[in-house]
């Protein structure tokens, strides 16, 4: 699929889809969205880019092996889960900042957990897709 239209579009789609995925990630918790869907959208962004420009170019954008995102995401998730222990509450209790942050809104430990899921999903799906397309 090396048509010029697709290739040009993919250059614009990559940042747009990444922005959209972050929006979906932040929108989660009370509204439809969240880390899992956001992560899938972000990985689709990279997949479209790799279809249009070839795997090597996408690799150059990401710079490191996407599998490395898995443990980083898990660290976010486990950190968000274990944070309530510091204040003597049970594992996974929701902790919230008192005041809303500008643009983002209310921030709690759930957001960090979702961010972890987001990173793990990107890591897993990109690792799978890159490995498969390498062997094609």
């Amino acid at each position, binding site marked *: 699929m090396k048509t010029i239209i697709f290739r040009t579009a993919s250059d614009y789609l990559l940042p747009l889809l990444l922005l959209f995925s972050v929006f979906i990630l932040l929108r989660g918790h009370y509204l439809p969205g969240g880390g899992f869907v956001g992560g899938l959208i972000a990985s689709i962004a990279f997949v479209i880019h790799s279809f249009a420009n070839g795997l090597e170019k996408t690799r150059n954008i990401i710079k490191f092996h996407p*599998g490395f995102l*898995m*443990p980083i995401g*898990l*660290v976010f998730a*486990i950190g968000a*889960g*274990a944070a*309530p*222990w510091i204040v*003597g*509450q*049970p*594992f*996974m*209790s*929701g902790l919230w900042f008192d005041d809303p942050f500008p643009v983002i809104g209310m921030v709690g430990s759930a957001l960090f957990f979702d961010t972890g899921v987001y990173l793990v999903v990107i890591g897993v799906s990109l690792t799978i897709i890159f490995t498969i397309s390498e062997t094609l």
Partner: protein
Amino acid sequence: MSNPYIVLPIIFQLFLAIVLMFCWTQKNLQKLVSTVGSLIAVIIAVIMFVEVWEVGPMVTQAGNWEAPYGITFVADTFSVLMVLLTTLSGLGVSVFSVGAVRNARVKFGYFPILHFLIMGLCGAFLAGDIFNLYVWFEIIIISSFVLITIGGEKAQLEGSIKYVTMNLLASVVFLTAIAVLYGLTGSLNMADLSNKVAEIENRGLVNLTAILFLVGFGIKSAVFPLYFWLPASYHTPPPAISAIFGGLLTKVGVYALLRVFTLIFIPDAFLITLISIMAALTIFSGAIGALIQNNIRKIFSYLIICHIGFMLAGLGMYTEIAILGAVFYLTHDIIVKTNLFMVSGLMFKIKGTYSLRLLGGFYKDYPKLSLLMAIPLFSLVGIPPLSGFWAKFYLIQGGLEVNNLVLVGFIILGSFLTLFIIARLWSEAFWKTGELVPKKLKVKYFHELKPLKRTAIVASILFLALISLGIGLGAEYVIQVAERVASELMDPQAYKEAVLGKL
């Protein structure tokens, strides 16, 4: 009593797995982290055990949602005992893996997955919510799928297909049972279910649900008509993986059976008869299966089935003494079965074959190692004062108490057949002059390994053998623990009060 830190054994294993994923490419660092981490996990489990022993059942509500609605974790004596045994055999397998697992498998994430598996096991033992128990079962089987296929040898893939199919089927049955139970009571919390199921008037429906649970857990713990997947798959992966599978995976099913059938469903006469028949046939078919096998790992696989029957028999007798025997047997069996599969791995490393006909001459060539290997082998038979003896003593006493002489007969028959099988294994593999097996190119033999790896293999077997000896010689203390577990299981009032608060 509420204690937010009782999920620590689970979280610590997750933490270890994450650290191991960060050092994906450094094989030696992974081995170090896994060993040291497993040691710390044992220390955590011991501290928790002591705490629960002194204070009684401890509870935490994940996410701080109150009991019947949130996800509860409960650490009573039974749970912490199982967590302790899991971490002990986890440490044994972790050290054994340092010596026996090939670098190719380490490269594909053997160690992180091993710790994910142990995390799932700890989670299943601490779960106080029946759906959460299902989730931990899923984590266990997903990790075990990876472990059983990692390396991708032809035999491994063949075994794993059987393993995957049967375990997924068991999960479906288990999930259906949970759905029916939720439809009946509207609750998933095990302590809450215990109260609500007792109040249901339609006992037929309750029994039906109980049977669904029995089938689901029965497939997982490999009891009589549902065990066929086990001997077809357990001998295929490398010995380190077989060890953790043989030692722990079927025992989670037994744990779940003991928990569900003492807390939620109090078995009536029909269920008791059914469980007794299943137990007797499990003992018999496992022992008969082991008699005719030639591959030592297949012999051990069938012996797993045979001895699951002993624990099920304890449940089938349903008295405090019998449950005590079952819990003691569980304690002894986890350590011994893990060790036996590691022993089979060592025998393979030395001789390059699992075939009983070709093996031989161990006693002459390696007298000290043979004596070491004799400890788990004869603990399994239950020659006094080794660990299996005491458990069977209590099981038989429990059987006599309820006058279930048929089941007692089967337990004695099973013990004799086990004795015969192990005696034959001993005389064939250790005393007979072995045949000269042609050297295999793909196998890395014991004497070719680096000294550190050799030490790791022998040290892990020695470690678990010493625990077996400890269970046998210090039986007095283990009986105290098992007695407390049995009394807590038969009278779950303290458990329910810990979860739901005083009523």
